């Protein structure tokens, strides 16, 4: 991205000045000069198009890990007011609705656990369905699936997957309101039949990590983290059901926009007024997919616990937090001194409520929401805490962000060699896809340290702990 077209407002905040006659809201980009310079110009084009959508409140924004996506850029944040003609966009959420990370803290320390990592890797790989063609053992009939879509992680807990204590530490306490299974197509429901409790492929993973560095001792204590501790992160989403809802509504909303007189700078932004019939249908279906994702990660949590106790009989895994990064959530934000109900799109961006937010569990109320920035399988991940006065509708980065395409990565690395190299570094990879491993090579991602640092400098969230991968299950 050519930085000459931007105006630097703060060390980690930039704006895109409007061209003469250009009708759009403000565009703000969070990140350091090197991070922004490494982004494709398409990021700017996509977020400028978002800023032209009706009913946008404040600015359209990108997080420090932004990269070229479809519809919104990945790392894009935009809030809309239904009362001001605001829209909801399928391209602002993506196909993998409510993709997110469940982070589990354990009572295991590296010193004791390391000797059994090979067995742990094999046991987890056997227990967690991952990759193309893999199905879960749980097969739901249509009535059961509808109940999942209404009850989210609560359904899973009620059916023996995990415990009620988990729910306190899942966004919306494990169940988003407003889910409408009737607005989910039969094909979407049939696609989910074998996919409950599955990880998927691509950038999804289950990772055993060690807390290597603490940045904020007080927050780490509140989060129950200490150096040398083993934690497990599960990255996945709403699987086939969410993918099909994204598919169904992308075309429906693209056609609706024209019919409803919404000018789309690019039809990849497919959207409809929140108050329209089409907008309400998408909202109901998307909320159903969010609940599906929450249930999926709850089931995977249970499978992970079972696998861990096979290897470490005394192991205990508690949910630290479960946060989604592909959603549109209805939230109250203060704008110019007034409280307004907004539909906040976060496409590859994490919610990051600051200290004192009423929706946070009591344990984290004084600290701020745990925010998880997932890195590559060879580098590491960060846990942060939401900052007071977050200027981006309480949003933060979600990952390292890709530095090169999958095809470029495939041309540069070979899966088996990469896995051997990582093993030499003490990182055990288990995957059924050598091609997938090469595409996910650590070198194909940006420097997660720079993203986390910029996220803190921008006032979006503050670093609490750095996690180093030890075992990674990939799809």
């Amino acid at each position, binding site marked *: 991205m050519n930085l000459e077209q931007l105006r630097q407002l703060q060390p980690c905040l930039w704006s895109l000045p409007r061209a003469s006659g250009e009708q759009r809201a403000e565009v703000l980009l969070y990140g350091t000069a090197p991070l922004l310079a490494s982004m*494709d110009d*398409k990021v700017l084009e996509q977020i400028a198009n978002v800023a032209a959508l009706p009913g946008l409140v404040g600015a359209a924004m990108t997080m420090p890990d932004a*990269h*070229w*996506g*479809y*519809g919104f850029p*990945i790392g894009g944040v935009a809030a809309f007011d239904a009362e001001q003609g605001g829209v909801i966009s399928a*391209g602002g959420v*993506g*196909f*993998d609705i409510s993709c997110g990370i469940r982070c589990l803290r354990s009572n295991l320390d590296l010193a004791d656990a390391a000797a059994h990592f090979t067995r742990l890797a094999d046991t987890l790989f056997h227990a967690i369905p991952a*990759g*193309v*063609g893999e*199905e879960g053992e749980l097969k739901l009939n249509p009535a059961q699936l509808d109940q999942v879509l209404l009850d989210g992680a609560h359904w899973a807990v009620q059916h023996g997957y995990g415990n009620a204590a988990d729910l306190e530490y899942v966004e919306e306490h494990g169940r988003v309101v407003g889910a409408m299974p009737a607005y989910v197509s039969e*094909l979407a429901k*049939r*696609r989910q039949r*074998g996919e409950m409790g599955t990880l*998927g*492929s*691509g950038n999804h993973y289950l990772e055993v990590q060690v807390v290597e560095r603490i940045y904020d001792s007080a927050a780490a204590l509140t989060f129950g983290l200490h150096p040398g501790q083993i934690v497990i992160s599960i990255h996945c989403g709403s699987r*086939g059901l969410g*993918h*099909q809802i*994204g*598919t169904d509504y*992308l*075309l429906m909303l*693209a*056609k609706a926009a024209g019919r409803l007189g919404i000018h789309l700078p*690019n*039809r*990849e932004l*497919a959207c409809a007024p929140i108050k329209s019939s089409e907008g309400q249908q998408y909202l109901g279906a998307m909320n159903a997919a969010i609940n599906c994702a929450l249930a999926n990660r709850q089931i995977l949590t249970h499978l992970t616990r079972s696998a861990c106790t096979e290897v470490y009989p005394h192991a205990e895994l508690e949910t630290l937090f479960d946060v989604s990064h592909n959603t549109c959530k209805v939230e109250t934000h203060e704008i110019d001194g007034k409280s307004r109900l907004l539909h906040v799109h976060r496409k590859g961006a994490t919610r990051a409520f600051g200290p004192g937010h009423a929706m946070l569990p009591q344990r984290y109320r004084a600290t701020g929401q745990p925010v998880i920035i997932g890195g590559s399988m060879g580098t590491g991940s960060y846990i942060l805490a939401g900052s007071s006065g977050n200027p981006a509708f309480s949003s933060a980065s979600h990952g390292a*962000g*890709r530095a*090169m*395409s*999958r*095809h*470029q990565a495939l041309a540069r690395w070979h899966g088996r060699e990469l896995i051997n190299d990582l093993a030499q570094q003490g990182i055990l990879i288990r995957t*059924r*896809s050598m*091609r*997938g491993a090469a*595409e996910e090579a650590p070198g194909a991602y940006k420097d997660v340290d720079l993203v986390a640092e910029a996220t803190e400098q921008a006032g979006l969230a503050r670093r609490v702990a750095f996690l180093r991968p030890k075992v990674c299950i990939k*799809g």
Partner: protein
Amino acid sequence: MPTSSSLYFEHDADVGIIGRGATVEQAFEAAAQAVFSIVTNLDLVQPSSTLTLEFEEADPELALVTWLNLLLGKAHEQGMIFSRFHVQRHGNIWRAEALGEKWHTGLERGVEVKGATLTMLSVKQTGAMWEVRCIVDV
């Protein structure tokens, strides 16, 4: 000389697919080949089962996205992988066959394709050739 071909173009997070052919139908077939080649090595897929599809779409670009997403939806629903495609267009009606087999562990595992998007979407005729393209989410 082949009358159609599948290619890719660069995209940061996902994959840009290209289908080329002497007709728009052949370009659609090549685009489907490009999509399913992301999932596995199609040379190893036996075309032993046939799925028939039909849809109505006047806009050729939206027809491309509809075609690819119908294939992906049906493949996931039925646990299938498709390797050969035949498309016919009759005005706004598109009729097609996809040939393949049930997914099995003997196939190479690539990456799941979640869906075809409206991003970088185009259906164009240049000289004697048609070229279609879009970004697919993986």
